[in-house]
């Protein structure tokens, strides 16, 4: 329940961000119910436009993006689930079409890479810090120095 709420919230945030580019279409499109509408909104914001590559099909004005939006619309209106639409797109355009790639063997490095690098960095920092403390031992004073310090301290009194 909460998860769905978060997703919807996120989707609506995305929607605001990109409303300018397809608001005209969103006005023309009337959904049969809220579920269909939210599915559509989430999907068009998760699918990559292959013509412009760095835009979602919601953001893009390319012809292919329009066609794919229309396809997503007909599929969700026909009652097909989000994963049905995702499957439909990936069998045709590959994993590249997904802005949120699936977690699998091929994308393992993509997902875990940053965490691995973080731990590597922490490991090296800890090692470096420890090494530093070995190289510079805490300053020690010999007897003569201690005596002179004591003298100085006593003098002020």
């Amino acid at each position, binding site marked *: 329940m909460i998860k769905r709420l978060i997703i919807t919230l996120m989707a609506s945030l995305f929607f605001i961000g990109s409303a300018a580019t397809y608001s005209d279409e969103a006005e023309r499109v009337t959904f049969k119910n809220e579920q269909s509408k939210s599915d559509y909104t989430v999907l068009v914001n998760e699918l990559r436009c*292959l013509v412009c*590559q760095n835009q979602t099909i919601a953001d893009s004005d390319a012809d*292919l993006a329009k*066609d*794919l939006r229309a396809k997503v619309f007909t599929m969700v209106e026909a009652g097909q689930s989000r994963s049905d639409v995702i499957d439909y797109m*990936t069998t*045709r*355009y*590959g994993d590249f079409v997904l802005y949120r790639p699936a977690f699998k063997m091929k994308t393992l490095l993509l997902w875990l890479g940053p965490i691995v690098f973080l731990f590597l960095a922490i490991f090296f920092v800890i090692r470096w810090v420890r090494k530093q403390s070995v190289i510079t031992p805490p300053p020690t004073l010999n007897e003569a120095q201690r005596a002179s310090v004591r003298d100085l301290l006593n003098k002020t009194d």
Partner: protein
Amino acid sequence: MKKSALIPLGIFAVLVVFLAIGLGLKPREVPSPFIGKPVPEFTLPKLMAEGENISPQALKGQVWMLNVFASWCVSCRAEHDVLTRFINREKVPVLGLNYKDEPEDAKAWLAALGNPYEHIAVDYEGQVGIDLGVYGVPETFVIDKKGIIRHKSTGPVFDETVQNDLLPLILKLREEQG
């Protein structure tokens, strides 16, 4: 000089290598999920014959190519000459998919530049294009005798593409059992 002073240089060298690899990649060439899969079935009206339909079944049993083209596509014009010479020389049957084009424009285009296609299917709505994962016209698929897609090139075909990819593959596929 201390050995550790070389570490930033080493990191920089690694970075340079990765950036150089990155420059060599072609992000436009998305690997097709269709390689090794059967060509999707479709039935579309023929461009040149009123009221007749064409499907990939018509070319079953031979090594053939499917070329997605349109009269509005500038790169298609660029590849047309190369493609035509290759098709005529090697006698490759080609099904042209006229993608999201006005049939009249396509006919005029072919009349002016020549028609190397054995069949031309009209995909006015671009629906078959979606089924084939088309995203950048022109696209060229190579299909073997069993109807399996073996290669796809996105963007115009150049002489190098023919020499390095298409010709060797087609000769190899012709050797295979149907």
